[in-house]
C-alpha cells in the first residue's frame, strides 16, 4: 500500500515538497490542522521562515501533536527551516520548537542571501551526487551519538538521520532530483511495517 505523507502547510515551500514526494511515488497532502495528522504515516516540515512556522505551530497545537506523532513511530523530515524546527538545540539560546532531534543547529550559518548557493553533494545511501540548493541555510553544528551523519559540505554537517527523523539544511524540493524524498518515503514504509 502507498504510504500517505503530509507536508506541514503553515508557511513555506509546500507545493514543491508535494510534487517531489509524488514524483518519488508517495501519496502527499498539505496539512494545515492537527486533526489532519491522524491519517498520515509521515510528515515533511518544509523550508520557509522557522520563526514564522514555529509561532504558527505553537498557536495551533502542532508542538504536542507532532511530539506524539513522533512517539507513535511516524517519521519526520525537516528541510532548512524544518531542520531548525526538529532540533533539540538552536545555537544562540533561541527556544527550540519540537526539540526532537539530538543536534545543535546554527541558523543563517552561511551568511545573508547573497551568500546563498547551490552545489553537488554526496549523500550516504544515495548513489548519485545530489544537486543541493542552500538558501540562508542553517548548519548542523553538533550531533548526539545516536545521529547518523548523511552528508557534509566543507566539513560541516548538512544532512543527518536519527532513527525516524531526517534533516537536511538544503532544499531537495527545489530540484528535479527526488532521491532524498524517495529515501524518506522508504523510511516511512519501513516504519509502517514495524508498527504492523
Amino acid at each position: 500500500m502507498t504510504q500517505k505523507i503530509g507536508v506541514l502547510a503553515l508557511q513555506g515551500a509546500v507545493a514543491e515538497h508535494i510534487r517531489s514526494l509524488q514524483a518519488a511515488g508517495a501519496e502527499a497532502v498539505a496539512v494545515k490542522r492537527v486533526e489532519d495528522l491522524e491519517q498520515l504515516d509521515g510528515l515533511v516540515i518544509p523550508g520557509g521562515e522557522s520563526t514564522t512556522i514555529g509561532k504558527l505551530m505553537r498557536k495551533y497545537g502542532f508542538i504536542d501533536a507532532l511530539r506524539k506523532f513522533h512517539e507513535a513511530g511516524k517519521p519526520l523530515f525537516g528541510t532548512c527551516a524544518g531542520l531548525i524546527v526538529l532540533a533539540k538545540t538552536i545555537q544562540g539560546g533561541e527556544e527550540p520548537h519540537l526539540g526532537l532531534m539530538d543536534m545543535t543547529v546554527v541558523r543563517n550559518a552561511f551568511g545573508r542571501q547573497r551568500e546563498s548557493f547551490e552545489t553537488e553533494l554526496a549523500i550516504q545511501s544515495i548513489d548519485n551526487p545530489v544537486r543541493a540548493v542552500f538558501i540562508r541555510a542553517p548548519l548542523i553544528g553538533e550531533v548526539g551519538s545516536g545521529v547518523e551523519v548523511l552528508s557534509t559540505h566543507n566539513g560541516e554537517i548538512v544532512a543527518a538521520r536519527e532513527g525516524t527523523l531526517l534533516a537536511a539544511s538544503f532544499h531537495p524540493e527545489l530540484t528535479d532530483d527526488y532521491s532524498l524524498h524517495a529515501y524518506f518515503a522508504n523510511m516511512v514504509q519501513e516504519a509502517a511495517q514495524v508498527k504492523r
Partner: protein
Amino acid sequence: MLETGTSRVKRGMAEMQKGGVIMDVMNAEQAKIAEAAGATAVMALERVPSDIRAAGGVARMADPTVLEEVMKVVSIPVMAKARIGHYVEARVLEALGADYIDESEVLTPADEVFHIDKREFTVPFVCGAKDLGEALRRIQEGASMMRTKGEPGTGNIVEAVRHMRLITGQIRKIKGLSKDELYAEAKNLGVNYELLLDVHETGKLPVVNFAAGGVATPSDAALMMHLGADGVFVGSGIFKSDNPEKFARAIVEATTHYTDYKLIAEVSKNLGGAMKGIEISKLAPHERMSDRGW
C-alpha cells in the same frame, strides 16, 4: 562547483516566503514587532508609502543606517527598496547585505525607459506589475519574485484586486492558446516567446507572485490569497493602524488560514482602527504610483 546568485537560488529564496507576510518597517523596534508577529521578512524603509504620499517630493532609497539597524535585530530576511532604474542604489543595497531588493514604484523612478538589469546581480529582486506583460518583462530582466502593484499607501485593496485578477485571467487565456498563437501574443505583450511558452505550459508565472499595494485588514490579505497570491506585502497597513502588534499577528494568521472564515472572524475582533484609506478616484493621475514603470 559552488555557485551563488543562480536563478534557482534567487527564485528559491522567494519560494521560502510563500504563504507569508512581508511587512514594511521603519526602524529596529518595528522590525522586532513584525518578526514577533510572524512576518516572513521585513522591508526596511525610511517612510512607509502613505507617509511618502503625504510628504511629496522625491522619494529615494533609505538611509543605509535604517537597513543596518534592522538587519542587526532580526533573523528573518531584510528587504529594501531602490528606485526604478537606479542600479547604483541597488548595488549599494546589495553591498550593505539586503537579502532582497524591491525595484519599486513607491519611490520616484530614476529612469523612465530602462529598468535595472537584474540578472547582473547576486542579490534577488522583486518587482511590481499590473498585468502579465509587465510581469514577464520584469522576469525577463531577471526579477526572481513578482508582486501586484496595487496602489501603495492607500489602504484600498481595489487596485491590488484589479491587478491580480487581470494577471490570473491573462494566464488562463495564455493556457488556452494554441502554440502558434503564442508568437503573436508574445508580440502583443512585448515579451519573449520562451517565457510565454513556459506560462502556457505551467499555467503560472515562473516565479512567486505576492499581492501588494493596499492590504489593510486580515480579510484583505485572505482575499488576495483567494485570488491566487502566494503571499502578501503589507506596507502602511501595519504601522499606520491603531494597534500594529495585533494587526500584524491577525494578518499573518488570516494569510495562513485564508479559507477558515471563523478564524479570520476571531482574529479580526477588537483590532482597533485600520489605517485611514484613500478612495482611488480622489488621486490625481500624477499621484498614482502604479502607473510608474512599464
